[in-house]
């Protein structure tokens, strides 16, 4: 693995080559260096495993209002000179780009701890042992398993000709298990994303997937329609992913967003607060341009408080740029998982959504399906597994009708997301799916 100093040194030498080739050009460089290891398994056997060492160098140059960017993964002197030549060549040929912003100069970043040496040391043997531990609960119950483990050890450095110099080392991991009954009537899934080795509990992920597979077997059919639903964190993540993607000031100002005219107004239920904070959600403390990311509350008790503003749009509209975030957390509530079920006379517990896609950006209507464990709730308790559904549901409506939020949170899809479980009402399960 490289050190931050090595990455910054490479970046500086590339900036030097740009200056030599074109003293008037401004430039920005990003260096990513990663070691990625993965192990994949299916039908209860390891199927593939791989390790990859890679490097990515991104160069953006601008000459006045003309700019271009390029990426490469070779660092020998000839390759770097070629990278500079083709980027500058394209910038010279480019028409003017009125949205060009000056490259960033020095910034002050509050570092956070994203690198865990123990995670970086998780070798092939330890990965295989972890997977064997995860498969134990399914083996005991004679279930078929499939899953995936991916571990990263890397660093990123961003520099510019104007003095920007930020960097961060990081580790990360994603582990997921699907367990299926051999008669094909039950399927369960669980996943965990974390940057820290101590939190990577292989056995727990495997056990929860196995429990759901058993519990979901031989589902009964209930009619499609509008239901009170309890959404586990993985399903909540799908809703907030579409929500977060819509938090763009420019789209709002241009009139093509579900949030037109909504800044400062209540857009979802007051029980929900959505924020980003590199000190509490493990995300890089600077964005793709190197802009430091401050703690930010997007939605405060249901009220839309902030929208993401790019540097260009900030200048155009005389606003402050926010930077681009990729980590979000929904504040915890005070309900236990059992309390989310209590009071539900007849509803559906949804553990995971699949193939969600935007249908109507104006109402933030999405479609998708339930998967890997869908259950009927009757009189406050789960009574039986049910067949899966297709949903057609406005994210804004679903989040507006939330009346309970769990106290516990999970990171099933990405380590930089923390999500509770929720209960909401009149959720449209539009048609039946035969998939198990």
């Amino acid at each position, binding site marked *: 693995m490289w050190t931050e100093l090595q990455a910054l040194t490479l970046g500086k030498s590339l900036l030097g080559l740009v200056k030599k080739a074109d003293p008037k050009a401004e430039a920005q460089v990003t260096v990513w260096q990663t070691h990625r290891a993965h192990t994949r398994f299916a039908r209860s056997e390891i199927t593939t495993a*791989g390790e990859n060492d890679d490097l990515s160098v991104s160069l953006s140059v601008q000459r006045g209002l003309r700019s*271009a*960017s390029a990426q490469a993964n070779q660092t020998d002197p000839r390759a770097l000179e070629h990278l500079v030549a083709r980027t500058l060549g394209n910038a010279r040929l*480019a028409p003017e780009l009125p949205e060009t912003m000056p490259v960033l100069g020095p910034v002050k970043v509050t570092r956070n701890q994203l690198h865990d040496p123990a995670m970086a040391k998780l070798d092939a043997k330890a990965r295989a042992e972890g997977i064997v531990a995860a498969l134990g609960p399914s083996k005991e119950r004679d279930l*078929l398993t*499939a899953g995936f483990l991916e571990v990263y050890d890397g660093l990123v450095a961003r520099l510019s000709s104007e003095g920007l110099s930020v960097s961060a080392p990081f580790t990360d991991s994603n582990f997921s298990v699907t367990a299926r009954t051999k008669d094909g009537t039950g399927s369960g899934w669980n996943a965990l994303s974390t940057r820290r080795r101590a939190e990577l509990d292989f056995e727990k992920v495997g056990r929860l997937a196995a429990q759901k597979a058993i519990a979901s077997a031989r589902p009964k059919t209930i009619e499609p329609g509008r239901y009170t639903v309890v959404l586990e964190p993985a399903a909540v993540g799908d809703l907030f992913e579409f929500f977060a993607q819509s938090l763009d000031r420019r789209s709002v100002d241009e*009139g093509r967003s579900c949030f037109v005219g909504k800044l400062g107004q209540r857009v979802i239920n007051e029980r929900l607060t959505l924020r980003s904070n590199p000190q509490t959600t493990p995300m890089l403390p600077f964005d793709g341009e190197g802009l430091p990311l401050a703690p930010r509350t997007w939605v405060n008790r249901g009220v839309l408080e902030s929208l993401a503003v790019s540097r260009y749009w900030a200048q155009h509209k005389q606003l402050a740029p926010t930077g681009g975030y990729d980590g979000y957390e929904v504040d915890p509530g005070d309900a236990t998982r059992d309390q989310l079920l209590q009071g539900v006379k007849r509803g559906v517990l949804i553990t995971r959504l699949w193939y969600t896609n935007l249908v109507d950006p104006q109402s933030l209507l999405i479609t998708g399906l339930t998967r890997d464990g869908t259950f009927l709730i009757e009189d406050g308790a789960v009574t039986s597994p049910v067949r899966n559904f297709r949903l057609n*549901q406005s994210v804004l409506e679903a989040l507006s009708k939330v009346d309970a939020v769990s106290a516990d949170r999970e990171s099933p899809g990405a380590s930089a997301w923390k999500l509770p479980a929720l209960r909401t009402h009149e959720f449209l399960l539009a048609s039946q799916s035969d998939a198990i």
Partner: protein
Amino acid sequence: MLTRRNVLLAGGALALAPALSRARGLVADETYLAVVASALEAAKKAGASYADLRIHRRREESVSVRDDHLEAIDDAERFGVGVRVIVDGAWGFASSNLVQPKEAARLAQVACALAKANASVMTKRVELAPNPAHVDVWQTPLIKDPFKIPVSDKAELLLAVAERLRAVKGISFCHAWVSTRLEWKLFASSEGALIEQSQTRLGPGYVATAVHPTSGEFASRAWDGQALQAGWEHLETSHFLEDAPRVAEDTLEKLHAASVTPGKKDLILDASNLWLTVHESVGHPTELDRALGYEANMAGTSFATPDTLGTMYASPLVTLYADKTTPGGLATVGYDDDGVRTGRWNLVERGKFVGYQTTREQAAWLGEKASRGCSYAMDHASVPFQRMPNVSLAPGEKDLSTADLIKATDDGVYVVGTGSWSIDHQRYNFQFTGQTFFEVKQGKITRPLKDVGYQSNTPAFWKSCDLLGGPSTWRLGSAFDDGKGEPMQSNPVSHGCPSARFRGVSVINTGAKQGA
């Protein structure tokens, strides 16, 4: 003379040189030959019963404009080597951006160590179907290399498109782009294969958006043209520029169209819409790894399990075939990433489910003697696995036009272009929208519609197909980045379709009323 075994046994660049000279036009870069020899020799020493490697270069240049100005020019390149081995019946893989003999040997050793670690906890051994050790070269047939067209010319063309879109009063925003991709790879195996291939793909597109001045509603319409494996001549003959005013008019028409009344209707799907339905409801379900549970954790499984081979998948009118040789198809290539020569075969023949997509590892799972040639890895750092070939719907025997299909329909909706899509994890329940929609009554288009989605179940949908357009309606549609696997890999793939009619499909309203 190259034989199946002497690459592994003899090693060394010199042993490979005669093979290179035998293949027409191969780049005989001795550095690469040394990398090949070093990896294969190290794999053998570390106990591999099989090894292969790919030296792989990907380049993607993209130019885009937003409204009346350039948005971005980007040129990304990745180069490296991936080494794959079988030791004690288990796979191992390692890759690096350093394409050097010493590094290749290290990768072979890492891959072998991984395979050994996995073999110790495995019970089923990997077995590869026999395959001739091909030595060959293949490249995209093209006239004008799109990488040699200056970015300024590309930007100029896109700005001209944007100008034509914006010239239509009521168009508020537009976005236009062209993406040019190159994949070059040298494949070599311990069995003696040595194959150099180069694929060039071109992905143009644009979208116009209109915002209603009073209601605040907005509508977008994307160009129906497609990405192809082709040179710059594709753009010169695809009406890319000429279609812009029509796309702009369609956008305004869509904004003001009547919202559809949901219900069961006959659907006439234009080839520009149906290709994506073919992709999701036929392409993915007939992937053998998915059908057997190997993708269960992410992409899902399939209703089309091997015990359903020979049963009816569709109406007897319907023949769907896989073809990695379709001219212009994004997945078209000479050899797959197992070194298997590609071809064409039926998946559904006159309605009956008859075949799967397979790799060398998978052929034996079905009791077949040879692979169908569907192995693919998106870059040097990715493990090859089963990916979709071009999967297409054969046109009807009579050369019916789309107008003929409309004329034969009493109560239906004609759908053009692709919009939103979603399908369940066993490929039964799907929902698609489109770009433009038209009400059909008594054989005529009566008015434009909006908020149209159609929802169905794969077998029921394909069994409801009762009319096919002829060869003159058949055209390719394309997915530039079809995702599958963990880690997720992107596969470019095309689907040819005629227009077709499907009876009694559930049409939903996707507007603010959230059509149930």
